């Protein structure tokens, strides 16, 4: 079942291939509808054994030009529908073949295709690595304003204490380098100074799905993919003008023992998005303003966020896409809680302290060559971020610019699907505590996917990365991966993979020079990358009203970067390669269609056995058991969400503080009224008191939220 469609995400319907090519090739076109003839927008139509594909438009119409003459197998996949296949489709030179599809609704809103696991479009279940997907429906049914509120419901993923973690790789990052690589439409989205991910610059509207590739994945994407890769995939710009308006208001219900004032602590947000086409150029504009008082003293946060996307026909049939995101956020500083038993107050000296974040992000996807068997893609990006403290006793700042591009050549030849490419990036930091280091990264990668039989699929990949920093050293890393998928039956598949990944130290880890809380921290330019080698065995079963996925895995980490004392010097610290660790676990996901269209259940469970092999202790800030459940009633009119995590076995900062397990329950109800979607939501329904992973950082108390939106369908 090998098929490719690298051009899929950007393939347009309005552009014709050159006449010369048309005379030697044919065209496939038609309509994708649901049973009952309603159009399905965004369905992926793929031609097996080629890189050709297209998405259906809002009328369900698709068009694929440049189809080589011959007999083809054509597949269609769409979220929420059972995939369909048509074999023996004959295309003659110059022919336009009409091929319609009528899809049956699936009990589960699973995505039709994914793009992250192999840098190409592939069907879910074809990846030898475990992949979790948050679909647009998963996100919409939780009425979230930030993706971090939905990500914990993806199997194997946690988001706590500001740290995104996959299968226990990260723990608590603490703002000094993410062990998960975040990408937006394939462009890396980590800051150039601290190597962090910032979800604050990612709008929720316009997101088609979030793909999470679990396990080390530097073989395709380079540094930071220790725990895996999270790729935010945006939806195509719709053909016709479309406007979405969404506004929300809410309030925190702070328990009386934590109350610090009589006023109501509320939050509100307004998002507006408009899409249009000007001649053949697609545009999508987005603006957002969020304000929250927070639930703590000093907790006020104001965020402005703007995004512009464009789809421009530059190179023949495949339009090129561009985006620019700008955001600014003013955040009240509430760091340094004294005790979870006290009121939510900051120390008197800290009252009024705040800091400002600013971001500017540009990215483009340019398919310079898009043919049936060849795709050449350039993906340039620029990411600027800046932070400045406005504290009573601290005005620290850092800002960084990171610019780079990847080039990727995909080819289908003689049963091989080959991907070759390279990455290059340059980063520059300016800071009073980091200095002015500059980084250079460059890489070459290759991947071959072969399918010796319809049931068996193998993937081999390797990447060579070079990382240099000035002042500092040069380091090279080799990251291989190998994976196998075996389809026992059309409904059941087995997979296994082994891979290696690395994380280059962030500039802040190498060059920070400061005194904080009476502690002197000095640079360590000789810091080495931390690495991980991991393997997993997994299975997926689609049994009609029951969908199951599971994997057992083990990861071995070496040279983990942590703060430590400088040898020979007392009371002086720096970041060092100090720890070896091993994480063993089980990762499960299930979707049940309990009562068709009436009651559904999505459940995840993650078991971790994380050991620090250097200290022979548990790795800190990880729960052994994490589970989520979502009960969907009446097709999403009512949702019940549950998150559970067991007591964190080891913490570092306040180990004598009491710790316990945490169970959070949320309720959401929706009702559509004359095109207006009204949603009411209660989070932390049972007023659980908990810490947000890090000791003395209280988790959010119960909150109530009302959201009104118009135009969400078809977004």
């Amino acid at each position, binding site marked *: 079942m090998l098929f490719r469609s690298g051009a899929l995400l950007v393939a347009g319907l309005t552009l014709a291939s050159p006449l010369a090519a048309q005379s030697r090739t044919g065209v496939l076109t038609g309509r994708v509808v649901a049973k009952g003839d309603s159009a399905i927008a965004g369905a992926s139509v793929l031609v097996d054994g080629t890189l050709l594909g297209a998405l259906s438009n809002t009328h369900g119409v698709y068009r694929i030009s440049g189809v080589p003459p011959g007999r083809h197998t054509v597949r269609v996949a769409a979220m929420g529908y059972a995939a369909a296949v048509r074999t023996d489709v004959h295309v003659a030179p110059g022919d336009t073949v009409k091929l319609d599809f009528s899809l049956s609704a699936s009990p589960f809103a699973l995505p039709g295709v994914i793009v992250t696991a192999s840098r190409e479009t592939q069907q879910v279940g074809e990846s030898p690595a475990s992949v979790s997907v948050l679909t647009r429906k998963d996100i919409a049914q939780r009425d979230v304003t930030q993706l971090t509120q939905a990500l914990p419901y993806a199997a194997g993923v946690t988001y706590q*204490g*500001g740290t995104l973690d996959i299968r226990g790789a990260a723990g608590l990052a*603490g*703002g*000094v380098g993410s062990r998960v690589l975040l990408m937006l439409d394939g462009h890396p989205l980590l800051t150039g100074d601290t190597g*962090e991910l*910032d979800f604050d610059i990612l709008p929720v509207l316009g997101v088609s799905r979030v793909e999470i590739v679990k396990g080390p994945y530097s073989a395709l994407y380079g540094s930071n993919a220790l725990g895996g890769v999270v790729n935010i995939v945006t939806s195509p710009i719709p053909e016709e003008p479309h406007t979405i308006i969404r506004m929300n208001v809410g309030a925190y219900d702070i328990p009386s023992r934590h109350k610090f004032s009589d006023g109501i602590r509320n939050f509100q947000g307004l998002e507006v998005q408009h899409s249009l086409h000007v001649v053949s150029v697609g545009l999508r504009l987005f603006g957002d303003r969020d304000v*929250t008082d*927070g639930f*703590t003293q000093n*907790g006020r*946060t104001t965020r402005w966020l703007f995004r512009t996307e464009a789809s421009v026909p530059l190179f023949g049939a495949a339009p090129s896409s561009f985006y620019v995101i700008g955001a600014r*956020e003013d*955040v009240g*500083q509430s*760091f*340094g809680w*004294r*005790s979870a038993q006290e009121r939510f107050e900051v120390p008197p000296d800290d009252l009024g302290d705040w*800091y400002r*974040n600013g971001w500017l992000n540009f990215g483009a996807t340019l398919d310079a060559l898009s043919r049936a068997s060849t795709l050449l893609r350039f993906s340039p990006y620029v990411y600027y971020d800046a*932070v400045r*403290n406005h504290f009573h006793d601290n005005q*620290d*700042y*850092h800002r960084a610019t990171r610019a780079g591009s990847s080039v990727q050549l995909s080819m289908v030849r003689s049963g091989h699907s080959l991907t070759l490419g390279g990455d290059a990036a340059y980063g520059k930091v300016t800071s009073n*505590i980091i200095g002015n280091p500059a980084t250079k990264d460059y890489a070459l990668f290759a991947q071959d996917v072969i399918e010796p039989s319809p049931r068996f699929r193998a993937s081999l990949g390797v990447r060579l990365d070079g990382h240099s920093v000035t002042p500092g050293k040069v380091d090279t890393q080799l990251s291989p991966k190998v994976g196998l998928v075996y389809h026992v039956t059309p409904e059941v598949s087995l997979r296994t993979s082994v891979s290696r990944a690395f994380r280059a130290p962030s500039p*802040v880890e190498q060059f*920070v020079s*400061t005194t*904080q*809380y*009476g*502690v*002197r*921290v000095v640079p360590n330019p000789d810091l080495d990358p931390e690495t991980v080698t991991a393997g997993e065995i997994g299975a997926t079963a689609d049994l009609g009203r029951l969908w199951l996925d599971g994997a057992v895995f083990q990861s071995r980490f070496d040279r983990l970067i*942590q*703060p*430590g*004392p400088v*040898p*020979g*010097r*007392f*009371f*002086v*610290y720096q*970041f060092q390669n100090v720890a070896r660790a091993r994480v063993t676990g089980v990762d499960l996901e299930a979707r049940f269609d309990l009562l068709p269209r009436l009651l559904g259940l999505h459940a995840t469970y993650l078991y971790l056995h994380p050991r*620090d092999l250097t*200290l022979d*202790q548990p790795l*800190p800030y990880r729960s052994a058991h994490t589970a989520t459940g979502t009960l969907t009633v009446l097709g999403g009119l009512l949702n019940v969400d549950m998150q559970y995590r067991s007591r964190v076995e080891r913490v*570092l*900062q*306040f*180990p*004598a*503080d*009491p710790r316990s397990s945490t169970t959070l329950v949320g309720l959401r109800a929706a009702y559509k009224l004359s095109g207006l979607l009204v949603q009411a939501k209660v989070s932390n329904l049972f007023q659980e008191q908990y810490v947000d992973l890090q000791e003395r950082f209280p988790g*959010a108390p119960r909150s109530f939220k009302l959201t009104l939106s118009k135009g969400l369908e078809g977004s």
Partner: protein
Amino acid sequence: MAYSRVGSMAALVALAALGLSSCGDNNPTAPEGNPALVGTYSLVSITFQGQPTLGPPVATGSLTLTDSTYTVTITIAVPGQPQEDIQDSGTYSVSGNTWTQTSTVQNVQSIGTYTLTDGTLSVDVSTSGQQQSSVWQKQ
């Protein structure tokens, strides 16, 4: 709610850094104390995370304990290295021979054991996974 990246970075490095001098606890369930501990002490020796044991004249310092708080000052003057001056304060509690301390300066907690024999106080604590031992003589 986002965290301050500058602030949280500092927090992480601070995690590694305490232990050394502090002693204290603001645990709301703070158990019994030991009145015999109250007083002022001089540093006899200090060992930190496998490094050589230091004492006067290279390492000098004083520790003042009330029934629940501590204040410590340590100066390290290793020839050829910059002088390190450490000042810390916070709260502490003891239960049996267990010692729990929380630095209000460094915002971190240490747990370990202590002994008090003939005015000599020995404290062995672990802070963020790092071991530190110190010996003090009551003045």
